[in-house]
Structure formats: structure tokens, C-alpha cells
């Protein structure tokens, strides 16, 4: 269980969980999900097991519609598994909670709040006093490079800026893990690259554990410590690839292009195989 004192001193990640960097941290065992509506059953996930290590960025790639969002929503506690268990540092995660932050493809920012008030939302919910809230939110707006826009309204921002607010909103609560569901999927290619580089910088600063869902293999190779390649629906793990290279990575390097090509081929086979 979470100890009150330790939560307060929680600085720079999940100190309170007692799990060391690189140790297995989120344990997903035999996860399954079947959607049922009227007489139609859709088996989205079948027998999915994965250990996520503390401090790593693990990305999940797979054909569209294979069940990536379903997995992430179950980790977030927004969706109940049909079978299997998910634990974070030993605690089962059945309900959503501030220990698991989420970044949404369509940003999910509250349009009636200013930028900084959006970032403060989680702290406000947790009952953090006003001044501390401000201070912490300002710090994270600085990390994502939006300190000048703290009083702007959401609909004045570009897509890339909106997602930076979404990332700051998740980071500021110092969650054990941040779950990102195709966070840059709604952005144009150039903004996407800028955001990826920005995320790499944030990783340097925070040691944040991140589960990153994407359908862009390029993005996965650029960012990840490990890549989980899913089979087509019902999703299970086809292969896990470790990428020990330091970041930032050079997209033009031969090993980068070779790995990207290999994963693409693998995904293609997954799509063709019947």
C-alpha cells in the first residue's frame, strides 16, 4: 500500500513504490478482453502478459484495430478486463487513479480552463494548496516549453502545443507511469518530429516510465527502450524488441533504418497472414 509520508516526498517518479529503476514494475498477466454487444462478441485481447520495467519507455505497435487502446484503457483502470490481472508495484489497478497518468490522442483538455489551470487539474483534485499547485504547474509548463502561454486559452493553441499541455498535465502529478495513446497521431509530420524530440528531452529530465502506443514504427524506433509488436486481433504479443541505443537517435543511421524496415516487414506479415 501507499505510505502517506512517502507520497509527499515523491520527487521525480515513483519513489514511494520502492521499485528500483529497471526492475519489473507493472505486471500484466494473462490479460483478456472480450467486448459484448447484443449478440456480437469481439475478442479484442487474448492471453496478453507483459512486464514493464521502471523508468523505461515501452511502445506498443500493431495493426490498427488490433486492441492497443483496449490494453491501455485496462492499465488505466478505465476498462475492466474479462480475465487476467494488472498490478503496479504489487498493487492491483482496478480503478483509475493519479498513479497512472494518461495522454490522449485528441488531447482531452478542458476548453474552459486556461493552460495552467489545465495542468493544475490533477493537483486540484488531489487537494494540493493553491500556491504549490501554481508553482508545480509552472515548472512543468517550463519543461514542455509553454511557460509563456500559461494564461492562454486552449483554443488559441496549435495541436502540438495542446499536446504539450496534455503531457505537462500528466507529468505534474508525478505518476508511476504515463500511458500515451497515439499522442502525436493527430499532428502533422513535422510537428510530430518536434514533439518526439521534445519527449526525448523530457525523458532525460524525469526518468518517467511511459507506455507509448503508436502505429508509427518510425516513432517507436526513435523513442523506445523496448518495442512490443502485437499480432492482429485478438491481440497478443508477437515479438518484443530491445533497443539499447542511447537517445537522441539518428533516423538516418543504418541500424535505425534497418530496424525500422525489419519491424515494418513483420507487421506486414501479421496483416497478410490469415
Amino acid at each position, binding site marked *: 500500500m501507499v505510505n502517506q509520508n512517502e507520497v509527499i516526498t515523491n520527487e521525480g517518479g515513483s519513489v514511494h513504490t520502492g521499485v528500483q529503476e529497471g526492475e519489473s514494475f507493472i505486471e500484466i498477466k494473462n490479460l483478456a478482453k472480450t467486448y459484448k454487444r447484443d449478440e456480437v462478441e469481439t475478442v479484442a485481447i487474448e492471453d496478453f502478459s507483459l512486464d514493464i520495467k521502471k523508468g523505461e519507455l515501452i511502445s506498443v505497435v500493431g495493426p490498427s484495430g488490433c486492441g492497443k487502446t483496449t490494453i491501455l484503457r485496462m492499465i*488505466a*483502470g*478505465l476498462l475492466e478486463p474479462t480475465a487476467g490481472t494488472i498490478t503496479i508495484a504489487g498493487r492491483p489497478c482496478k480503478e*483509475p*487513479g*493519479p498513479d*497512472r*497518468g*494518461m495522454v*490522449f490522442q*485528441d488531447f*482531452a*483538455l*478542458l*476548453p*474552459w480552463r486556461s493552460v495552467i489551470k489545465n495542468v493544475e*487539474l*490533477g493537483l*486540484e*483534485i*488531489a487537494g494540493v494548496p493553491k500556491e504549490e499547485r501554481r508553482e508545480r504547474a509552472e515548472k512543468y509548463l517550463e519543461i514542455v516549453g509553454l511557460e509563456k502561454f500559461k494564461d492562454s*486559452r*486552449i*483554443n488559441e493553441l496549435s495541436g502540438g502545443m495542446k499536446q504539450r499541455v496534455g503531457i505537462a*498535465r500528466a507529468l505534474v*502529478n508525478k505518476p508511476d507511469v504515463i*500511458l500515451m495513446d497515439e499522442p502525436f497521431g493527430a499532428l502533422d509530420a513535422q510537428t510530430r518530429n518536434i514533439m518526439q524530440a521534445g519527449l526525448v528531452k523530457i525523458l532525460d529530465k524525469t526518468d518517467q516510465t511511459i507506455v507509448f502506443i503508436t502505429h508509427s514504427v518510425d516513432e517507436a524506433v526513435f523513442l523506445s527502450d523496448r518495442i512490443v509488436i502485437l499480432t492482429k486481433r485478438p491481440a497478443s504479443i508477437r515479438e518484443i524488441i530491445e533497443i539499447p541505443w542511447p537517445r537522441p537517435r539518428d533516423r538516418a543511421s543504418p541500424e535505425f533504418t534497418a530496424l525500422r524496415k525489419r519491424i515494418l516487414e513483420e507487421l506486414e506479415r501479421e496483416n497478410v497472414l490469415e
Partner: protein
Amino acid sequence: MTFRYDDNNKYHRFGRYALVTAMSLVAFVLVWWVVSIIADTNVLPTPLETVNALVDFFEDGYLGNSAWDYIWSSLKLFIQGFLLAMVLAVPLGLVLGFSKTLNTFVTPVIEVLRPIAPMAWAPVFIYGISYGTGPILVVFIGIFFPLLTNIIFGVKKIDPTLIDAARTLGANKLQLFTKVMAPSAVPYVMNGIKVGLGVGWMCIVAAEMYSPMSLGVGYCISNMCMSGLWPSTFAMLIVIAVLGILTTTTAEYLQKYISKRMGVE
């Protein structure tokens, strides 16, 4: 120096708007004037006679009461009906927006009652309940239904990913309501208020005509009419129009302002 209209200049845009609006009003008065001279009947006074009657009404009052007595009397009924509608429609709309079962249960009743013209209720409420509260209830009915349907719609329109986002930030049920659902619904509540005020103001004037107890502008105009005071009658029409325009433009301005503040266009 020649003047060139520039659509990107807000002063030019406003000037144009003001000029065209003024021309529209002048044209209206002119047509009225011509028609009143051609028609040559007591029933249709000229604009000048009407303005004189209007000035008299505000200076001398009517039947021993001042103009402001009549106006305030109507406004009082209007405000009471409006508040009653707010107090009932806001919580009911929120509940019906959230609960599918309750919504299914109540919808048939609403759909039967809603198309009944508010004025059809006037004799029922005024003769059946009381001269005093009857007109208030008529206004209430006029405002209640547009308000209710807008609020239900607003709650249903809440973006489910905003709810997900707040839940992943640890929000409990109450926090979900105060931090996401209620603010999301505010622009729709405002829209309901805007529509409701327009309908409500039409109701009040007509409802007062039924009620021998009321002392508002509706009573005033029907009395003037029956006494053959046509210029005064037309002056009252102007008073009623101006009050109606004031309430709806205020509501419209508020609605636009709040929607913009809330990030909903």
C-alpha cells in the same frame, strides 16, 4: 481625401452596422407614417402621436399608477417565473441528462406537455389556480421547456474523453461533476435561458390580459385598447417591444460571452 470602407477595420464595420440599422428604423417609421395618413383611422396613430402618448405615459402614468409601476409589476412576474423555471429545470435537466432510465421514463411526459402552447395554460392557471400566481406559472411554462431540453442536450454532449481524463487524474464522482460535467453544461444552460427568456416575455404580456389582478404592461395595454386610447396603446407596444429586446439581447450577450469564456463557440 476620400473615404474607403475597410471591412477589416472594426470602427468601419460598426459604422456600417449602425448606419444600416438606423436606415432600417427610419424606413420603418416612414412607412408607418405614410400608412397611418393614408388609412386615416383612429386605430392607427401616426408615429408623432404615438411618441407624444409615450412621453405622456412616462410623465403622467395611467389610471393613477406610474409607468414604472406597470413595468415593474410585469418584470416581477417575469423574474419569479424565470427563477422557478431555473430552480426546477437545472437539477431536473442534469439528472435526466445523466440517468438513461429516468430519461426514458420522463421523456414521453415531456413530449406530450412540451408542444402545448404556453398560452393555452393561461386560463387554466389563472382561473384554476389563482390570479396572482397564474401568470407566473404561464411564464414558468414558457421558460421551463426550452431550458430543460437544452440542459439535457448539454449533459449528453459532454465529451466522454474529458470524463476519462479527469478520472485518470483521480477525480471522484463529485469532482467529475463539479470540474467537468457542470462546466461543460453551462453554455447549454445559457442557450436554454436565452431561448426561454424570449418565450417567457411573450407569455407574460398575454397572461396578464387574463388576470384581473395583475397590474402589468399586458393589463395596461388591454385597458387602453378597450378605452379607445389608440396612441397610448401603440406607445405601450413600443414599451413592450423595448423590454423584450432588452431581455433577449442581454441573455444573448451573456450566452455568447460565457460560451466564449468556456471555450465553446
